[in-house]
């Protein structure tokens, strides 16, 4: 089984559907009540206790989890000086703390399964230091730092931890970003084009393969930087 957080929309939904098409048994976790999915848990990744309940359910029912894909995330594009504290807190809580919680809580399931993969999501904006994305970039830079250290802590258990850092992908997260801003970001990529969600689902599939067992602690910038 593979756990996907944020699996009801955007990249998470694309990842979930791609994995299902490949015949994987996927457990989705998202805030929405997504009854279209068989193994869905309605849960906010910032709620530690709710996540723990999902863990206990999966653990006590003997589910074998081989991967965790953390797609849950929110974006907010503002100058740092004009970002309200509530937005700052929401972005950090969801993107950084939510990722830390899910990693902490579900990693033992991978350890019990004698190994597995954790894939967290960053953004190409971390490397590019994009103006107007300071809080978002701060949250994702935290995810990268956490992932690198967690990779070391989980290496003895045959669990790899990596980050995928996409550039602009055609999802709702791009709402509020002008075409000029998107072009600016894309122009900084080696492959200067707006990626489709399939570019990410392919990267996830690649990291899940057995041949990727020695790739860990890495940040993979999709499109290249």
């Amino acid at each position, binding site marked *: 089984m593979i756990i996907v957080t944020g699996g009801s929309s955007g990249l998470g939904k694309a990842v979930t559907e791609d994995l299902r098409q490949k015949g994987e048994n996927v457990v989705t976790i998202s805030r929405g009540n997504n009854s279209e999915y068989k193994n869905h848990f309605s849960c906010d990744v910032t709620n530690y206790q709710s996540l723990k309940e999902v863990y206990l359910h999966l*653990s*006590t029912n003997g589910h074998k989890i081989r991967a965790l894909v953390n797609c849950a995330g929110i974006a907010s594009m503002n100058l740092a000086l004009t970002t309200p504290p509530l937005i700052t807190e929401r972005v950090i809580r969801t993107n950084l703390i939510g990722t830390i919680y899910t990693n902490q809580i579900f990693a033992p399931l991978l*350890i019990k399964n004698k190994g597995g993969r954790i894939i967290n999501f960053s953004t190409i904006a971390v490397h590019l230091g994009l103006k107007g994305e300071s809080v978002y970039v701060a949250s994702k830079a935290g995810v990268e730092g956490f992932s690198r250290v967690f990779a070391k802590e989980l290496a*003895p258990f045959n669990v790899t931890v990596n980050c995928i850092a996409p550039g602009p992908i055609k999802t709702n997260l791009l709402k509020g970003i002008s075409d000029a801003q998107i072009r600016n970001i894309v122009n900084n990529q080696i492959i200067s084009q707006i990626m489709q969600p399939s570019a990410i689902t392919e990267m996830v599939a690649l990291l899940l393969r057995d041949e990727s067992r020695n790739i860990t602690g890495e940040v993979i910038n999709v499109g290249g930087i």
Partner: protein
Amino acid sequence: MITTQELIQIIKDMTEDDIDLVPDSSLVGGGSIIDSMGLVQICLALEERSQSDGFSFDWTSEKAMSSLNSIFKNPETLAQEYNRQLLAIHK
């Protein structure tokens, strides 16, 4: 309930080497004969056992973390924490 001797046996069963473990042997810190990987495995083993005892051993609770040293200090303190959680759930 778990006795300290049972806990010591669980730890011994997990480690490949024949380690000399007594109730007050350090489980964390410089003098510990268990590494961080071993500590995680002990926690998972206790969680597995706790499920058969009708609860889930929580080694990450605020209470557990605030007294991290005492819980993981040695097999005796760890067994005490396990039994404390067990009794709390069956109150």
